[in-house]
């Protein structure tokens, strides 16, 4: 075929017209039911010890070696869905639909839902990813944009979950980039996973789907039951060196363990030099691979979500009238409403002005959201007009609850108390005339003792910073509803110290956890002040007994740890699991009569250290030492083994 210059000019004109006619953002239609194309990429359950093809860090391998599949029989595990980092790897059918703005007809969100997953909206409206302090979910938070005909999705705020179902984990620091590429009736789903905790390099995986006009993804009902009778608090796991199953994959296929455990190296062709020739490799070569450096971390990468500015207060709503103030030291939980303000903890003293300013903003926002209702009252009885002429001033702080006596929990007591005003009555300390002159401070009585009578040489807290109402029993209830709900302080014995409380907002179903949990570090506890690892674990198990998830083991009862982001029972269960596993390891080492230094050298928290062990105020070593002491480490055992 010959082509004249005129013909080419014509084509150039057509090309120009096409370029002008196309929209700024491509809009390939992805809607429909998609069946997975079964292939080597989506084999579902993997075999035990199948660690190949994943850039696992040393911490990841240690954690996988501890994984026992029977953990999935725990009530907190049974109804979990597959998370966004895994689901496309399993052979699950996919449904995609879109939300279209009724006026502009723009696609504002795509929705992706697989069998055994939850609906995942992918926002296309330009919104930003939430604060890192916001709740994390199985599906995560997703935003999308078109790159040519590819839909690119960024995913953050994912709970920790598995990358493979044989115990290969990702942390809640994971972020994903996903690409959806449609070619006729086929859809390619590419996932690039970044996890600074458990992946030393990005993990790149893909799956193919085919349009299926006859598919309807069925529901996936799930009921939590008691699958295994076991003592309360038991978390199934393998102690280091006891899991023989991790060699199963190696033994079955004849692949050397040094290849299986090579981490990122086994994604690349060079690994063949360590694979026997009988399996298609070029090895084995005599030199062993270099061991990954201890504490190996992946290369730095700018995260998709940014933390709020240092030194500023960030306020996030939890549910109803409950908010959290981040950035004042320990998290401050605030109940805001018609009755005034109840605070759980008061942060650091230096931050109280900013806390008060933030509370004022929250209250004004609350007033705006709860403006008087519209017309509707009886004409001959009352009118709502008067309410509309009044902008109510912020209500005072009525109560401050201290979950412990730690300085970043009580530092703002004095100033915040004096900025408030309590209700008269109750268990008033001191002169009855003082009762209305400041907010009441509630706490377990041990908090009062520590603040009022500190050890010799230390200054007592100012009188106005000390609790006004204390309890010494299992719990304390406010004697009336506050902001429309019951509020209960529950004592957690021997946890962070001997005077800890959690605070349960029973109407909003929110629990302030105090020092029971910190999402960015191990829980801090002071053995000298009556704290213990078992108390922390028991406290978390108690919280899990109280909490009821909304759906698929997420949401429902929301909780606010003393430090870190908002969590739910799924997050608390992971934290409980981790602490139980570390406790069991240290207990085992103590039983073997190891000294504290030997226990530290054994690194019983090595698989969790990349995520929790770096906090300067509470390092992994400090935590392990506290665990060791609280379990009686270093004390003579009843019967010593012969050396």
């Amino acid at each position, binding site marked *: 075929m010959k082509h004249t210059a005129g013909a080419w000019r014509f084509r150039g004109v057509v090309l120009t017209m096409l370029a002008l006619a*196309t929209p700024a*953002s491509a809009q390939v239609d992805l809607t429909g039911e998609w069946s997975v194309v079964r292939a080597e990429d989506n084999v579902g359950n993997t075999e035990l010890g199948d660690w190949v*093809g994943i850039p696992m860090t040393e911490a990841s391998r240690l954690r996988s070696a501890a994984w026992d599949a029977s953990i999935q029989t725990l009530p907190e595990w049974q109804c979990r869905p597959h998370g966004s980092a895994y689901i496309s790897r399993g052979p699950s059918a996919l449904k995609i639909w879109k939300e279209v703005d009724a006026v502009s007809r723009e696609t504002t969100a795509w929705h992706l839902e697989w069998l055994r997953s939850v609906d995942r909206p992918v926002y296309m409206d330009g919104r930003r990813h939430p604060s890192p302090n916001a709740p994390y979910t199985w599906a995560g938070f997703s935003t999308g944009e078109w790159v040519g005909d*590819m839909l690119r999705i960024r995913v953050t705020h994912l709970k920790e979950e598995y990358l493979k179902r044989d115990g290969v984990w990702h942390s809640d620091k994971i972020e994903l980039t996903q690409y959806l590429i449609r070619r006729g009736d086929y859809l390619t789903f590419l996932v690039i996973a970044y996890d600074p905790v458990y992946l030393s390099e*990005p993990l*790149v995986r893909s799956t193919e789907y085919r349009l299926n006009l006859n598919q309807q993804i069925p529901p996936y009902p799930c009921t939590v039951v008691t699958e295994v009778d076991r003592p309360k608090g038991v978390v199934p796991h393998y102690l280091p060196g006891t899991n023989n199953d991790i060699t199963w994959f190696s033994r079955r296929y004849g692949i050397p363990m040094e290849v299986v455990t090579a981490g990122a190296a086994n*994604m690349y062709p060079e690994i063949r030099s360590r694979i026997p020739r009988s399996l298609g490799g070029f090895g084995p070569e005599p030199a062993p691979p270099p061991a990954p450096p201890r504490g190996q971390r992946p290369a730095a990468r700018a995260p998709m979500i940014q933390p709020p500015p240092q030194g500023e207060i960030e306020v996030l709503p939890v549910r109803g009238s409950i908010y959290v103030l981040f950035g004042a030291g320990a998290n401050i939980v605030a109940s805001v409403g018609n009755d005034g303000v109840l605070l759980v903890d008061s942060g650091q003293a230096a931050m109280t002005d900013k806390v008060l300013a933030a509370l004022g903003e929250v209250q004004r926002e609350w007033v705006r959201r709860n403006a008087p209702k519209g017309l509707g009252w009886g004409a001959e009885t009352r009118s709502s007009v008067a309410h509309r002429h009044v902008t109510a001033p912020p209500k005072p702080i009525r109560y401050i609850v201290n979950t412990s006596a730690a300085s970043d929990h009580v530092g703002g007591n004095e100033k915040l108390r004096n900025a408030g005003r309590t209700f008269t009555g109750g268990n008033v300390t001191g002169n009855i005339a003082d009762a209305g002159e400041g907010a009441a401070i509630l706490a377990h009585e041990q908090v009062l003792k520590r603040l009022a009578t500190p050890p010799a040489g230390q200054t007592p807290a100012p009188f106005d910073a000390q609790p006004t109402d204390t309890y010494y029993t299992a719990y304390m209830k406010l004697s009336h509803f506050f902001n429309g709900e019951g509020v209960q302080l529950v004592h957690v014995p021997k946890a962070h110290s001997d005077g800890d409380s959690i605070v349960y907002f029973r109407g909003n179903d929110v629990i302030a956890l105090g020092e029971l949990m910190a999402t960015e570090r191990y829980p801090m506890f002071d053995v000298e002040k009556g704290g213990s690892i078992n108390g922390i674990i028991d406290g978390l198990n108690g919280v899990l007994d109280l909490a009821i998830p909304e759906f698929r083991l997420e949401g429902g009862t929301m909780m606010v740890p003393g430090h870190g982001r908002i969590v739910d029972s799924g997050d608390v269960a992971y934290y409980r699991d981790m602490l139980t596993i570390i406790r069991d390891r240290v207990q085992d080492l103590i039983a073997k009569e190891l000294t504290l230094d030997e226990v530290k050298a054994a690194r019983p928290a090595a698989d969790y250290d990349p995520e929790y062990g770096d906090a300067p105020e509470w390092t992994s070593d400090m935590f392990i030492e506290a665990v060791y002491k609280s379990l009686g480490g270093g004390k003579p055992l009843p019967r010593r083994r012969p050396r």
Partner: protein
Amino acid sequence: MVALATATVCWMLSASGAAQGGPGQTPTPRAMAPIDLTGYWVSLITDDWRWRMVTPPKGDALYLPVNDEGRRVAEQWDPAKDEAAGEACRAYGAGGIMHLPGRLHITWESDTTLKVETDTGQQTRLFRFGGSQPPSGEATWQGFSVATWELSAGGRRGRGAAPASRPGTSLRVDTSHMRPGYYRRNGVPYGSKATMTEWFATVTEPDGNTYLLVTKMLEDLQYMNAPYVRTVQFKKQNDGTGWNPMPCSTR
């Protein structure tokens, strides 16, 4: 509209005249390449490691759309026999080569031909733009490949992108005239009438990594009961580090 635009652009770019180029004329496929596929790329073997990084046992056709005849032939796989017959490259044909662990070196052989070299098996694939007719001679391991740019219907240009750059675009490659080979290294076959459509696309991440995605659809009525559709990934390298030419091997 999308299909119309794509089809039209493909048609324009596939015409033989596009190869002429020159001042005042329509740019060549090389000049108007909307994405840059050139350079060194290393395969990333992840979920499918057990079937790609090692040679699976004979008869392991798990997850492959083999029909009864394909399974029967796969059961007869005899690497020694292949080697003796000078057929050591059966797993390195176009239908299987992109799945083998190794590196690619992609260059423009001419303004109208993109060349893909592999270090594993030392193979060369040529993707020809324009309306070249397939050769009438014997089929080859890499067959005869026709390439077209599948321009997206829209999409914002990436910030700082070159004038011709259109992220999200794919290179489509249609391959036929392949010598019968294996699409799994352990002797799972495709026949002489097999055809293959591939799409080559790239994605660039904020950490600076660029990935090459190769989606293939291998169709063969002789040995398959459905198309074999897979995507494999490569990571772009700065240079030829690790390039390790190795001859075909039957093991």
